[in-house]
């Protein structure tokens, strides 16, 4: 089939010259071609054609009389590849099946499918369908490569803030957010304290009680900053990372589980804290 698809003129010539040899050379081709096709079933069209080209070249070399005309033919085919293929393949498949029937019963079942698939591809060869097909397969097999980041793993729940009296805020789902971010809750809480310039404690239900009034929106921006600084990988933007503390140099390192890169992160510093409220008595 591949032979025919690419070199119709060459094929004709061969037929007229030595039909016996031609059939012999063509019959082994489909089995190898099908094997290659199986391998690349989930991949793009382009690869398939290249593999076919290889097989084609092999056949060409196998045929005995390589002349200048043949060369020019193959060169011409390079430009006209697609058109000729479209027009020819429908005829070829029937031709093929007949040959396959001769070859053996087992091959028919598998190769018949392949032929059908091939027909389908040829008929709907538009870029859109191919692209959607490629992405469908990619999503099924490995969704991470398809840019599917909205998985349940990396969806961060919105912070829940309740007021506790008039001066305190309860941050209810710190624990949950910390587990989603794969961080130690202590680390996250430390960052929140440093960034908000407050102090607080964890109550019985593992909720965080912060001193001061904070809106969920404000907490969100702080969390975003935390994620940017301590969670996302700067190289691949993945959030599937791990924070490790190296005991040798007492530095925190962020290692990405997706791409394997490592970078050091600065430790959390509270910085200057202004004296608020009643001043200390002068000694």
């Amino acid at each position, binding site marked *: 089939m591949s032979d025919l698809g690419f070199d119709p003129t060459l094929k004709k010539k061969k037929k007229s010259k030595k039909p016996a040899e031609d059939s012999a050379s063509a019959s082994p081709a489909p089995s190898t071609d099908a094997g290659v096709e199986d391998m690349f079933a989930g991949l793009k069209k382009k690869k398939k054609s290249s593999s076919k080209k290889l097989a084609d070249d092999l056949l060409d070399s196998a045929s005995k009389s390589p002349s200048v005309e043949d060369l020019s033919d193959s060169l011409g085919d390079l430009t006209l590849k697609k058109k000729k293929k479209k027009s020819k393949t429908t005829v070829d498949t029937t031709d093929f099946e007949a040959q396959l029937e001769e070859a053996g019963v087992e091959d028919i079942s598998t190769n018949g499918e392949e032929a059908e698939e091939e027909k389908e591809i040829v008929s709907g060869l538009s870029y859109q369908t191919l692209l959607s097909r490629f992405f469908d397969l990619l999503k099924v097999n490995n969704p991470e490569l398809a840019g599917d980041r909205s998985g349940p793993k990396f969806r961060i729940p919105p912070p829940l803030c309740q007021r506790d009296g008039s001066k305190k805020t309860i941050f209810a789902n710190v624990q949950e957010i910390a587990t989603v971010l794969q961080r130690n809750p202590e680390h996250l809480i430390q960052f929140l304290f*440093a*960034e*908000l310039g407050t102090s607080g404690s964890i109550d019985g239900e593992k909720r965080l009680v912060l001193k001061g009034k904070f809106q969920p929106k*404000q*907490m969100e921006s702080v969390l975003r900053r935390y994620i940017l600084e301590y969670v996302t990988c700067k190289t691949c933007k993945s959030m599937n990372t791990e924070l490790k503390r190296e005991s040798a140099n007492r530095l925190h390192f962020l290692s990405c589980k997706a791409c394997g890169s490592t970078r050091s992160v600065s430790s959390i510093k509270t910085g*200057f804290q*202004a004296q*608020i409220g009643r001043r200390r008595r002068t000694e």
Partner: protein
Amino acid sequence: MSTIQNLTSFDPFADTGDSEAQPTNYIHIRIQQRNGRKTLTTVQGVPNEYDLKKILKVLKKDFACNGNIVKDDELGEVIQLQGDQRVKVSEFLTTQLQLPKKNIKIHGF
């Protein structure tokens, strides 16, 4: 061989003299909550070549707020301003003093 000799002429790991990586030259602008709706802005790490007193005088007039300079043992002199002046302060530092924006870090919510 010539390529290897080429390599020896330039050491990529040599100290270039850039102190970009130094964390000390960051200017931190923080906010703290006080009683009620009141807040306090602190500016930490303004380079020594600037006269903090003069900066404070301008800031107080521009933002119409009070403020003062606090001396800290570890962090040096810190400007304190009443109210949430974080965005205004960073704008002032970048436009009037020509400080690079990447050196300014705004903290808080």
